[in-house]
C-alpha cells in the first residue's frame, strides 16, 4: 500500500445519506477480474442525467467526497473502493460509514473521516468554492477559513496508512502463533480443523 499522510484538494459536495455500494458501483460492473477501470461506472445511476456533482466540471478530479451518514452501506464489494480510487478519490468525509466499506477503503488507502453533521454542513458550503485539507498525522480536517475539526481513527489503521504497510506481510510475521493456534484447534476441535477433508 502507498503511504498516506495528507489529502488536500477540492471536494464533491455530495451530501447524500445512506449511499449504498450499489450506488457507488452497480453490480453489472463487477464482472471484472482486475481492480482497474471501475471509475467509469462509479455513481452510474446518478450521472445518467448529467446533473450530479460528479458531472460538474467544477469538481472534476476532486480527491474528496463530502457525504451524508451511513456512507457505503450494503454489499461488501471492494469494487466500491476501487471505483472511488479510479476516479481519483482519496478520502470520504461523512457523519458515519458502514463497517465493511470503511475496512475496504482503508485497505486501499482511502481515508474515511467521520465528522459530526454540523461539520458536514459547513464542509458542504466550503466545498462549493474552496479546497479542504485532511491531515492524517494530526487527525484533523481544515479549510482555508480557519475551520478545524479533529477526527478519530483506529491506531492500527493509522500506522498502516502512514507507513504504507502490507497487512498480509505483517500478519505472516505472526506465523508461529497462528501455527500454535492451529495445533490447539486440531486437538481440541478436530471437526473444525478437518474442514472440507471431513467428507467421507
Amino acid at each position: 500500500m502507498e503511504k498516506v499522510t495528507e489529502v488536500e484538494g477540492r471536494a464533491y459536495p455530495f451530501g447524500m445519506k445512506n449511499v449504498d455500494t450499489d450506488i457507488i458501483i452497480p453490480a453489472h460492473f463487477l464482472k471484472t477480474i482486475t481492480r482497474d477501470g471501475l471509475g467509469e461506472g462509479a455513481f452510474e445511476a446518478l450521472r445518467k442525467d448529467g446533473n450530479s456533482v460528479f458531472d460538474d466540471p467544477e469538481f472534476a478530479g476532486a480527491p474528496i467526497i463530502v457525504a451524508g451518514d451511513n456512507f457505503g452501506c450494503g454489499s461488501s464489494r471492494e469494487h466500491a473502493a476501487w471505483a472511488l480510487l479510479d476516479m481519483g478519490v482519496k478520502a470520504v468525509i461523512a457523519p458515519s460509514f458502514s463497517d465493511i466499506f470503511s475496512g475496504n477503503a482503508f485497505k486501499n488507502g482511502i481515508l474515511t473521516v467521520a465528522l459530526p453533521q454540523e461539520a458536514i454542513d459547513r464542509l458542504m458550503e466550503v466545498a462549493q468554492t474552496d479546497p479542504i485539507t485532511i491531515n492524517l498525522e494530526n487527525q484533523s480536517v481544515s479549510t482555508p477559513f480557519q475551520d478545524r475539526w479533529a477526527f478519530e481513527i483506529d491506531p492500527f489503521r493509522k500506522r498502516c496508512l502512514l507507513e504504507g504497510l502490507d497487512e498480509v506481510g505483517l500478519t505472516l510475521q505472526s506465523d508461529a502463533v497462528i501455527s500454535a493456534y492451529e495445533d490447539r484447534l486440531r486437538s481440541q476441535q478436530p471437526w473444525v480443523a478437518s474442514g472440507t477433508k471431513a467428507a467421507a
Partner: protein
Amino acid sequence: MTARTLYEKIWDAHVVAQREDGTCLIFIDRHLVHEVTSPQAFEALRKAGRKVRRPELTLAVPDHNVPTTPRVDAAGKRIPIADAQSAQQLAALEKNAPEFGIHYFGATAREQGIVHVVGPEQGFSLPGTTIVCGDSHTACHGGVGALAFGIGTSEVEHVLATQTLQLRESKTMEVRVEGDLGPGVTAKDLIMHIIGEIGTAGGTGHVIEYRGKVFEQMSIEARLTVCNMSIEGGARAGLIAPDETTFAYLKDRPLAPKGAEWDKAVAYWKTLHTDEGATFDKSVVIDASVIEPTVTWGTSPEDTVGISGEVPDPMSFADPSKQRAAQASLEYMGLTPGQKLAEVEVQNIFIGSCTNSRIEDMRAAAEVLRGRKVHPNIKWGIVVPGSGLVKLQAEAEGLDKVFTEAGLEWREPGCSACLGMNPDKVPPGERSASTSNRNFVGRQGPGARTHLVSPAMAAAAAVAGRLADVRELTREPA
C-alpha cells in the same frame, strides 16, 4: 468467570494474538469463496508468491453471475455462458480453486448453489465457528450459531494467505422479540420489521444477537433468513444461539462431524449461549404480535410497512435528510404518499436469493400457488432454488410443477435477480415483488423498482398481480 454474551464467547475462542492497540488477530474457521470477489485476491497471492494457508478450510462455489437457465444440453454437454466477462470470471474461479487446492463445487455440480445456502446445507457452517466470505450476506450463517460476516477482497486475500483477520471486537446488541408471530407472518416479515425499527445503520459497529421464544421456535431455514439480513440493519453479523433444532439440522450433513467427534462437538455447542447476567451494549425490544406481512415502499431496506398500510408522506419524517431521501425514493419508485400498498401493481416476481431460497421458502410459495394461476399483470416470474440439492428436493415434492402450472419459471440455482449482474433482471420502470434483501436504486437492474417481501407474499403478489395480503389467499383457492 464473568458472564459473557454468545458473541464474546466465540470471539474469545478465536483470538490468536492481541496487540497493545486492541486489534486482535482472529482465526477464521471457514471461508466461502465465489467468483465475483475472489479473482483479484488469487491474483495478488500469485503475484506475491503466496499459498493458501489452509485450503481445507475454504469452499468455493460460483453463484453471483451464473445464468439460471439450463447449464447442460440434452446430451449432457456444458452450455457456454453468453456474456464474455461472466464466462471469464467463472473460468478464473475454475482455475484458481484447483490451483490453490480448494474444494470446488462447479457450475454443473448438484451441490452448486448460493454460498450461503451451500455452507449450512453441507454442514460446512458449524456453531461456534468464525465464517467469512466476500459477500455481506455472510451474516446468514449466524442462523446456525456461527460468527459470520462479509469481507472485502483485500480481506479475502488476507484470509487465504493467513487464515486470520486483523479485527477489533465489535459492540454487542440484543434484539429481543417478545410475543408470537401471527398467521401468515414469517421470519422475513420479522427481520424486515426489525430493520424498519432500528434503521439501516441501527446495528453499525455491533454484532446482533436475536433472542426470544420466536427464534427458539424457528426452523434453521427461518433463522438463516433472519440472520441473513442483519447487514441491512447495519450489523456485520447476526447470531442465534445453537440448540437442539440446530443439532438436528446439522446431523449427518456431509461435512458435519461424525461419531464420537459429533458428540464432542455437540457438548461444546451446548455451551454456546449468552450467560445469565451478561450485558449488551445496546438492546432493542420488538413486539412480534403487531407485525403484519411486511413490504418495502422505498429504496432502503428500512422503508418497511405492513401490507395493510400506505405509502408514507416524506414530510412525516422528523429528520430533514430522511425527508429528502424519502422524496427521492418515491420519485424513483413511482409512488405517491397515501397510496395503499395493497393497490400497487407488480409486473415481475422473483422468488429466490440467499435470504429466501431454501426448501421451506419453496414450500411456502408453492402452498399459496397450488391450484392457482399468476395474474395477467405478471410479465415475468421466476423461482430460483438456492442450490442443486434444494432443487432436487423441491422436484421430489412436486413443487416445480406447482410453480410451472401456475405460470412461473423454474430455474437453476444462483443469486439470479437479487443483484442485476447476471441475465435475470427487472426491466427499467417495472416493479417486482422480490424475496431478496435489497431494494436499492438499480439493484435488480437499472431503473428497476423493488418491493421486498416473503416467499408467501411474493406468491400472493403473483396471483393478485399487485402487492397483496397473503392472509386473504391462504384460504381455499377459488
